[in-house]
């Protein structure tokens, strides 16, 4: 339970305060990709203020088993509390499911700057059964260090659910890649 009800003297019942609360929540870093904020990652969906003055922040988990979800919720609640909001509720929103398409351009720039290749466009769901592709698909993931396109996947799974392991044949450096989902 992460609902935080604390008492301070700050009165926060205005639209300007809702905007300020949003800006506070937007700055919370992602625990697994700390160069990104939850807003950059697209996990923070909405921050609103109820007529009673409760700040409601909506988070959508990246993966079903994301172990950082409770940490994210706690950090958003703690930051808002530190900013003086008396009543804060951090909710989980499951629908629609998170997609890497929600990572902002700023988020993509920061990923690349930190040596992590940003995701391409997520596959579009087509009607009918999801096809299984067995033929070799040559995906081009440019090296985030040298920009070369002569790269290859070494493992589709990495240290976190969202990343794959790749290496660059040009500069010989390994790098991580955020898989589109």
């Amino acid at each position, binding site marked *: 339970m*992460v609902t935080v009800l604390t008492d301070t003297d700050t009165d926060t019942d205005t639209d300007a305060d809702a905007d300020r609360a949003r800006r506070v929540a937007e700055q919370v870093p992602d625990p697994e990709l700390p160069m990104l904020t939850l807003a950059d990652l697209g996990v923070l969906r909405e921050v609103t203020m109820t007529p009673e003055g409760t700040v409601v922040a909506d988070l959508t988990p990246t993966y079903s088993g994301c172990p950082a979800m409770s940490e994210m919720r706690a950090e958003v609640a703690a930051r808002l509390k530190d900013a003086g909001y008396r009543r804060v509720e951090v909710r989980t929103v499951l629908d629609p499911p998170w997609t890497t398409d929600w990572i902002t351009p700023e988020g993509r720039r920061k990923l690349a700057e930190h040596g992590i290749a940003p995701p391409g466009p997520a596959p579009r769901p087509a009607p009918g059964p999801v096809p*299984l592709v067995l033929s070799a698909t040559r995906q081009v993931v440019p090296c985030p260090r040298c920009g070369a396109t002569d790269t290859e996947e070494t*493992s589709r799974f990495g240290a976190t659910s969202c990343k794959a392991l790749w290496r660059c044949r040009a500069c010989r450096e390994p790098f991580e890649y955020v898989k589109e989902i």
Partner: protein
Amino acid sequence: MSDDHVYLSLAEGHDDSDARWAFGTGFEDPLYGVSTAVPENVDRAELAACCLALADDALVTAQRLAEWTTRAPELEEEVALANIGLDLLGQARLLYARCGQVDGTAGGEDAYAYFRDADDFRNVRLAELPNGDFAFSMARLLVFSSWRLAHFEALAGSADPVLAAIAAKGVKELTYHRQYAAEWVVRLGDGTEESHRRMQAAIDQVAPHLGELFAAHEARTEVLAVLRQVTEAAGLSLPDAPPSAAGSGREGDHTEHLAPLLAELQSVARAHPEATW
């Protein structure tokens, strides 16, 4: 929390939270903030039973996948299998939480995962079979994820919005689980004489369990289409009419392999029922 000290700051914790980074007991409700309402046109008992069975499938499969850690042929495969298991564990947590909201017991995920005996589990038998050969684990994962994917695609249109959302998310994850397993089945089937022999044995071993899966959720068309595609590409043969095994885990009728799996999974929680970790 700065970039440099992110892990230190995580360890510090928060006054008002018990946020932790491992899976043990006593975690917060993974559905916190999601409406607990059940639409009037949804049968609560049916919905609870559906969530419980799908959660049990995921939990037991996740436990078997986790058993590969430190035992897989390569480090990358351990990481892959642990990742896939983590996705399924996450699906299990959400489904148990929904089940607890719907079945009237208000049971939390721990009550379902740690304090039920084998007879009360509703997972399909295929999930509980020992890992055996790596080839068998890949054949099972291919069948399981293909079947679950078809089931979740159908459930994404469920009248229950929570189950529909869990399923829609799961579809994305199961798609790459299936892809991973399919590639291994092709690699081993179309590999050396030895790998081909063992992959064929694994397919033959998994095939008799298809009947139980289809009885639980009819997805014959989708699953057989995938199996035909993969076995053809791998140079393997798919048994024509796999005989159905008698009995089903969906009725609590399990093999002798489930109880030892649960004994290990539940041992710490049962030895220290008030503890959280």
